[in-house]
């Protein structure tokens, strides 16, 4: 069974629209959702959470139709978004008690452990916390519930490297259990590249690329060619971008196979180097 299935979801706002978004996240996997600011990441995640109702399309989360069956679904979803806040005038302990009173499977030992590792003070008021502490506090309230699905909107944005590492660590701990899944958005492509099994690119409300991470990264290559005078590169399949620099050509392929390299060699160009691209480079190349 899939953790998330979105079929053709659309949502219109005066200045933005989400256009026929399709997403499938199988159980036991991590999906990284990447896009520029305002691309529709938050809107999509909120539709999945049942916090926003799509104008059209079907949303199914953990086998429940959203938002109609949101109660049943939300028992097992943990949601944290970067712009979400806890009660500013209350302490973390207040929120922990509140969550414990609602969720029977609240794990007190795990919560205590996280408080220690995240270096949080339960008696400190939320409004006195730094951005990083606030995010950690929100994540703690979700982790200690041990939900089947975690939906995180920009969980590592604005955090220092140590905090980011702690959070990625905690997210990966969840993956120990094969039935649990994570969907998270980020514009930190390093985080996405590190822990995602699936990668989805969204731009202007539309999904522009998706694949499992290994195939995604494997498909892209940058070839450095040295070419003779008056060389003309023929039209080739799988070429995303070509940059001419005198006797050098930088060729970016989005569907690389060794056959492409052979074809290029046959044209008389010399391949000096074949490099892989980082997710960040792929993201920029795709979005531009």
């Amino acid at each position: 069974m899939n953790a998330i299935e979105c079929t053709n979801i659309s949502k219109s706002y005066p200045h933005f629209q989400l256009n026929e978004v399709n997403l499938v996240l199988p159980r036991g996997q991590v999906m990284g959702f990447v896009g520029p600011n305002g691309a529709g990441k938050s809107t999509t995640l909120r539709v999945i959470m049942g916090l926003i109702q799509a104008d059209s399309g079907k949303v199914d989360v953990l086998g429940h139709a959203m938002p109609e069956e949101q109660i049943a679904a939300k028992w097992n979803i943990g949601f944290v978004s970067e712009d979400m806040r806890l009660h500013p005038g209350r302490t973390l302990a207040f929120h922990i008690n509140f969550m414990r009173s609602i969720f029977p499977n609240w794990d007190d030992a795990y919560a205590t452990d996280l408080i220690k590792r995240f270096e949080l003070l339960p008696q400190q008021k939320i409004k006195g916390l730094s951005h990083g502490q606030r995010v950690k506090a929100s994540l703690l309230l979700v982790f200690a519930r041990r939900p089947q699905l975690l939906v995180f909107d920009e969980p590592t944005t604005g955090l220092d490297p140590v905090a980011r590492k702690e959070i990625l660590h905690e997210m990966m701990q969840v993956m120990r259990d094969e039935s649990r899944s994570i969907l998270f958005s980020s514009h930190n492509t390093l985080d996405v590249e590190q822990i995602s099994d699936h990668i989805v690119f969204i731009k202007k409300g539309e999904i522009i690329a998706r694949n499992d991470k290994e195939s995604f990264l494997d498909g892209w290559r940058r070839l450095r060619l040295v070419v003779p005078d008056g060389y003309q590169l023929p039209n080739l399949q799988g070429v995303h971008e070509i940059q001419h620099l005198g006797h050098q050509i930088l060729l970016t392929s989005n569907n690389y196979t060794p056959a492409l390299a052979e074809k290029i060699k046959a044209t008389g160009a010399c391949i000096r180097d074949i490099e892989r691209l980082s997710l960040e480079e792929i993201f920029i190349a795709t979005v531009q």
Partner: protein
Amino acid sequence: MALSIYLPIYLSTDRVYTVYTHIPMNIEFILSQTDGRPMYQQIMEEVVRRVSLKDWPPGTRVPSIRELAVALKVSVITVKRAYLELERMGVIVTQQGKGSWVSEGLQVTNLQHKELQRQIERLLQLAATMGLCTDELIYQIEQHTNKESGAENK
């Protein structure tokens, strides 16, 4: 990682693994994000290194894909790919639903040989981009070996 966790698994398999009770205690790999090589290759290399150094002798149960992914904070799919390649190379064997072990019949020298071949290939690639011909490369290598043996003689 406690031995007791693995014991039932060993006992349930038809092959007698109890002979080799060596369990990889340390699955802390250091992976580099600035390294040009993809994650799955770095994982493969680390496993191969441990196997060739006999830290993980033949018959050792290697961490499950999920265990290693969690420990390394790397996606499951990446570790899965590394294991598939390692299996193809004959470094590990996987039994569906039971786990993976370092191949029993594995010739470590073979593995080291393969690693040497790979390093040479990389060296040749680098030399090619620098425009060095093979003779020049051999000369450089000789220079190096002389320097090292000279240092030993002192």
